[in-house]
């Protein structure tokens, strides 16, 4: 059973916006959105503490364990692929390999911020200013490697403390199936992504 004191500490750490802080070196602030975190407190959770790479997905932050991240790089020239789902805008060359690119906004049907359309729709318009901000998180799981596109990469958050539990806040969304934990970060939802499940689902089948 996870007690409330432990949850309070985690909440204040995340909401401080200090990515270098750890749950144990930040002062407790009970006024922070503990309500949402309490929703996650149940007896069937398992804790996971490790470093995560966090990047923007629409109104959320997604977290992927750094063990599954190979690199974050700029977007190179994208070659479109014929007859693939819309969430696969193409491939780019990465270290002499072909890196399939994955647009999670499209995969999860998430609307981007008002001023920014789906990344996929912009990829083939050369030198589009929006593309300059696009970053590629090169990740691997299940012996597969893809580049996840994002307009904003927050960086690595050390010692993130997730509780493995079926998501409740986003339970009505298509995204929920691929999330194994959720918590608040600076008032925004931080979602721990099940990368293995995602790549298996997104893989282009015969």
């Amino acid at each position, binding site marked *: 059973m996870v007690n409330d004191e432990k949850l309070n500490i985690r909440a204040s750490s995340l909401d401080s916006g200090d990515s270098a802080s750890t749950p144990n070196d930040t002062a407790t602030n009970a006024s922070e959105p503990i309500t949402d975190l309490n929703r996650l407190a149940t007896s069937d959770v398992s804790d996971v503490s490790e470093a995560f790479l966090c990047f923007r997905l629409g109104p959320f932050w997604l977290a992927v364990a750094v063990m599954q991240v190979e690199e974050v790089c700029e977007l190179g020239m994208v070659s479109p692929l014929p007859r693939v789902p819309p969430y696969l805008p193409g491939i780019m060359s990465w270290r002499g390999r072909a890196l399939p690119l994955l647009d999670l906004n499209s995969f999860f049907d998430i609307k981007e911020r008002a001023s920014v359309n789906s990344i996929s729709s912009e990829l083939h318009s050369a030198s589009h200013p929006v593309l300059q901000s696009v970053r590629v998180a090169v990740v691997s799981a299940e012996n597969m490697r893809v580049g996840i596109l994002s307009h904003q990469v927050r960086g690595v958050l050390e010692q993130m403390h997730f509780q493995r539990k079926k998501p409740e806040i986003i339970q009505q969304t298509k995204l929920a199936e691929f999330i194994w934990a959720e918590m608040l970060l600076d008032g925004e939802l931080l979602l721990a992504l099940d990368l293995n499940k995602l*790549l298996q689902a997104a893989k*282009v089948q015969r």
Partner: protein
Amino acid sequence: MSLVDTASRFDRSSSADSVPVVLLSLDVVYCAVEISRVIQIEEVVSEDGWSNTAEAASSIENLIDLVDYWQLPHNIMPRLRRVILIRTAKGQRRLSLGEKVTVLTLPSSRLIPIPLFLEGWARRLGIKAFFAADNYMGFLLEVDWLDQCSLMEDVDTNSHIDGATIGE
């Protein structure tokens, strides 16, 4: 120098270090076929003199037009159709992509394996490898895949195509 002349004098022999190919391209889409399997490069014409159009190409039976088959965007539809006649395991097939046809040698070092994530896709489309071309990547086609492509039947030798044999 015409394209056909260039092709006919090209060394068709492959080696461990390189693969001579015929490259079909349209905008940023590149498709390569090993030249050892290419019989002829042709150009689409129609009976009424309105030549080199997509409509003329569509009148040729047994032709797989990659613009259609790959569902490429209409904004990069080619003005001209060139066709290559290919020897496959079960006979001969015709393939078209657009107006640009180039003969070149792909160094083996520029061939890039298909990532596991895309293996199912590549198998479905008969693509056996990627290759680096300019700033983009192209697709090296598995020629015998054309035999099982649902759009293909036996080549219609009466189709409206002008062509020139480029070797053998």
